[in-house]
């Protein structure tokens, strides 16, 4: 695997939001966490750094309690003892942020009790119940990125509460209030928290009637309903007063930082594709060590490119600049491992959805048509890429783009929600996380894991092992058949090219299935050439199998050469052995079936012993199948040659009668078999010894470095 595409929320993060702090009128309020006996316990009171007015605090908390679309679910009544009295109800909402905010308000005394007959009930700090009549809900949509409610209090006041992203709230409030809150918001975003701002407006009856009428008209409109509603929302949510801002934390999953570090060290490039906004995503990336402090970040976002009509030109400038920086200024040290960039300057790229669509779907100018290639080149040189504000289809688009580059790298996608399904399906390997957002991702994936950290062992240990096993299996099969057929082929030169088989028909049939299949089967299921723990803890080992390393030309030629060499050794070894009168001490002569049987015996033993040499991890099964196969061969040969087949529908000749047993009575044959097996395995043994020496010398050199 070369490229990993991950989703952020739910994959890298826990997707469980927690209310961390808020800022009311510019004053920061943060939780006080005290540790008692190792358990962290939150105080009920707020620790404050300078206090705002009590009424403003209460207004803020009321806003939090009212401006949402959370519903209450009553817990089932259980006979007998009931647990905590406050936990009778659970909150349900489509957005975990809202639940976090409501729970946060609950912690400070304002509990949301539910919606009954258009009235929202709240219990405030003095334990009184307040009722608010819910008049309108202006729902959240991702375009305008805010939501509002209009409520009437018991005293008849009409209030509009609005909650949303800071970029959509700030333009709509009084300008002088922004600054003090903006400071806090920016700091929260830098810390990686998800920020929301809260504003309110008091409405007069007349204003309300107008708004009411407009809303109803827009809701009932038959044509262009969305546009009409959007316009009404725009008009309504204007000239508000900013109350404060909230910060919600979405914690990183355990060990996701270590996992990403390990994957980087293994030579894989990690791309984070998310729908969240850039600042939050960026800080998450810093937190999970996708971007190190030394990483130079290249940005291709709306912020940098701008929104004007000149954005295409600006994009062009940026692309050229980055391209020049990355491609032409590549450092000159190309030696060593193919994908080690830990020595040179690291680059990270940030891009968001709209800029991406500019690049991938250019307008009619021909000059912008090769942006894609330049962009791709830039991407491939960066160690980490962050794509924010991505639509699900764009995620799949990016995966496809990388898949189709030169060299066809193997891609892996991991995600947890339904919006990741297209990405998972597109990549070569799709991994789904069974998380809070349902089972869609895991249903569509190739592998499902419970947490992000499991990716590490999956790739570094299991992926590595599977690859090594399969590659070895393929090479071994070709090799053993080459050994098998080459003597047969060479024999034709000595039998008048008449297709006389060298081995008996039974041996021909049973070689591949009965004598040599079980050992390699056991090997390819059980082999661990390096311990699993070592593989997991040392990610650099993964680079040994990058780019299909075990099936490239060089290993293939080695195996082929080995097979050809062994075939020649078998055949000509026995050929020269047969140049004398007799191999026995009583002068009797061997025939052609004995010749073939000697070659076959050497063959079976050599091929199986080669596998035994390659096995690094011996289990009882390996021992059983390897020695068992050899024993089976011997027993079968005795059996096959020990019986005169009087009654047999398919065996009309006794050519193998006693051949094997007779062959074993001759000392010369034994000596020859042992010698030929040894000569055949000699190159392999030599190579192992030389490899060990080279590794030792590498270790010594690395120690010096």
């Amino acid at each position, binding site marked *: 695997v070369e490229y990993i595409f991950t989703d952020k929320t739910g994959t890298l993060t826990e997707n469980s939001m927690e209310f961390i702090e808020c800022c009311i009128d510019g004053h920061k309020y943060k939780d006080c966490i005290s540790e008692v006996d190792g358990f962290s316990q939150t105080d009920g009171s707020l620790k404050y750094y300078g206090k705002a007015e009590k009424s403003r605090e209460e207004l803020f908390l009321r806003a939090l309690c009212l401006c949402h679309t959370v519903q209450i679910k009553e817990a089932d009544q259980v006979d007998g003892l009931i647990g905590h009295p406050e936990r009778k109800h659970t909150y349900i909402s489509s957005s975990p942020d809202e639940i976090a905010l409501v729970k946060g308000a609950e912690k400070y005394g304002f509990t949301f009790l539910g919606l009954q007959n258009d009235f929202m009930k709240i219990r405030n700090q003095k334990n009184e119940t307040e009722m608010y009549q819910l008049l309108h809900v202006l729902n959240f949509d991702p375009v305008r990125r805010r939501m509002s409610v209009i409520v009437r209090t018991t005293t008849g006041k009409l209030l509009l509460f609005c909650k949303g992203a800071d970029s959509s709230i700030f333009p709509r409030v009084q300008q002088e209030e922004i600054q003090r809150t903006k400071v806090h918001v920016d700091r929260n975003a830098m810390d990686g928290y998800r920020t929301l701002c809260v504003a309110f407006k008091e409405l007069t009856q007349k204003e309300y009637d107008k708004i009411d009428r407009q809303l109803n008209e827009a809701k009932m409109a038959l044509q262009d309903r969305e546009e009409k509603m959007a316009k009404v929302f725009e008009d309504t949510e204007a000239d508000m007063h900013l109350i404060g801002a909230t910060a919600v934390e979405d914690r990183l999953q355990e060990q996701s930082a270590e996992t990403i570090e390990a994957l980087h060290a293994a030579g894989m490039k990690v791309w984070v594709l998310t729908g969240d906004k850039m600042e939050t995503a960026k800080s998450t990336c810093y937190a999970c060590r996708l971007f190190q402090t030394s990483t130079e970040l290249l940005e291709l976002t709306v912020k940098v490119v701008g929104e004007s009509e000149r954005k295409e030109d600006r994009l062009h400038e940026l692309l050229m600049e980055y391209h020049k920086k990355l491609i032409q200024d590549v450092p000159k040290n190309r030696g060593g491992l193919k994908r080690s960039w830990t020595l040179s300057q690291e680059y990270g790229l940030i891009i968001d959805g709209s800029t991406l669509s500019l690049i991938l779907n250019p307008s009619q100018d021909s000059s912008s048509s090769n942006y894609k290639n330049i962009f791709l080149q830039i991407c491939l040189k960066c160690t980490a890429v962050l794509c924010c504000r991505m639509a699900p289809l764009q995620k799949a688009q990016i995966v496809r783009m990388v898949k189709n580059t030169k060299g066809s790298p193997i891609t892996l996608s991991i995600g947890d929600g339904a919006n990741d399904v297209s990405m998972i399906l597109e990549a070569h390997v799709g991994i789904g996380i069974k998380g809070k957002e349902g089972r869609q991702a895991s249903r569509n994936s190739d592998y499902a894991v419970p947490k992000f950290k499991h990716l590490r062992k999956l790739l570094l240990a299991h992926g590595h092992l599977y690859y090594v096993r399969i590659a070895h299996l393929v090479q071994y099969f070709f090799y053993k058949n080459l050994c098998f057929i080459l003597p047969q082929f060479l024999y034709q030169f000595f039998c008048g090219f008449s297709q*006389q088989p060298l081995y008996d028909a039974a041996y021909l049939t049973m070689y591949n299935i009965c004598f040599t299949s079980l050992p390699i089967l056991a090997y390819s299921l059980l082999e661990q050439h390096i311990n699993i723990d070592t593989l997991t803890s040392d990610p650099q080992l993964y680079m040994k199998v990058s780019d299909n390393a075990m099936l490239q030309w060089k290993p293939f030629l080695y195996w082929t050469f080995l097979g050809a060499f062994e075939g020649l050794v078998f055949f000509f070894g026995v050929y020269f052995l*047969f140049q004398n009168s007799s191999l026995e001490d009583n002068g009797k002569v061997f025939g052609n079936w004995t010749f073939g049987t000697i070659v076959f015996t050497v063959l079976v033993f050599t091929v199986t012993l080669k596998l035994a040499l390659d096995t690094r991890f011996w289990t009882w099964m390996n021992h059983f199948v390897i020695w068992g196969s050899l024993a089976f061969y011997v027993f079968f040969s005795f059996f096959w040659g020990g019986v*005169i087949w009087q009654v047999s529908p398919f065996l009309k000749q006794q050519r193998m009668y006693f051949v094997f047993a007779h062959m074993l009575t001759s000392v010369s044959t034994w000596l020859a078999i042992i010698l030929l097996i040894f000569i055949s395995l000699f190159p392999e043994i030599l190579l192992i010894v030389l490899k060990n020496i080279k590794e030792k010398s590498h270790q010594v050199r690395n120690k010096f470095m």
Partner: protein
Amino acid sequence: IDYTGTEPSSPCNKCLNVSWDSTPPCTCTINFTLEHSFESNVFMYYGLSNFYQNHRRYVKSRDDSQLNGDNSSLLNPSKECEPYRTNEDKPIAPCGAIANSMFNDTLELYRIDNDTRIPITLIKKGIAWWTDKNVKFRNPTGDGNNLTALFQGTTKPVNWPKPVYMLDSEPDNNGFINEDFIVWMRTAALPTFRKLYRLIERKNNLHPTLQAGKYSLVIAYNYPVHSFDGRKRMILSTISWMGGKNPFLGIAYITVGSICFFLGVVLLIIHHKYGNRNTSADIPN
């Protein structure tokens, strides 16, 4: 000793174009000298060259159940034997091309001692595999002494001078269990091969079996090989516990042994060098 007789100077040149069934058979004599005396048991082989006993259609042209004494196969040989299966509507016993091309030269050995020819006893028993002679090849069931009756209804192979039940006068070397026949039926692996013909047993430990000196080989030249450029030889050989004379195993073992020894020394030096460096590079933490 090659006795094909293709050179005009060879004594067997006159027998070169003789037909296979001429009576009386053409005889020729070749004189040779033994440089050294041969001790212990001496084995006499005949060798053929350019004779492809391992040709596929030749190898399969036999009927093992007939040779095992099965009466039904005796009168109804298998189809593999074609075209040597029947002759004039009578089944051939033994059928097949292998049996048909049986080697039928007769070789006799004489020692020349001051112009007197002393014949050397050649033993014809014990040249075939024990299992071949006693299990695999059996005469048809019946009275072993009257083989002619047992082979009733069959005819001799096309190119044989005499039928199979007249291969030898002794009943336990006659018919299918004739050892020369059995030795011939074990197809050789390579086109240049030798087959055991006779044994010369040692007399006692004091005298060598074959003294150095002059010998003469008398050949009844029946077997024509000239048409396919084949060659015929007679070989005298002594056998050790490892078999006949063949330097291959010895040379191979010595070569491989020396290479291994040499590499062992080289790798030991390398290991020593790196082993030393390894220990000296340990920087204490």
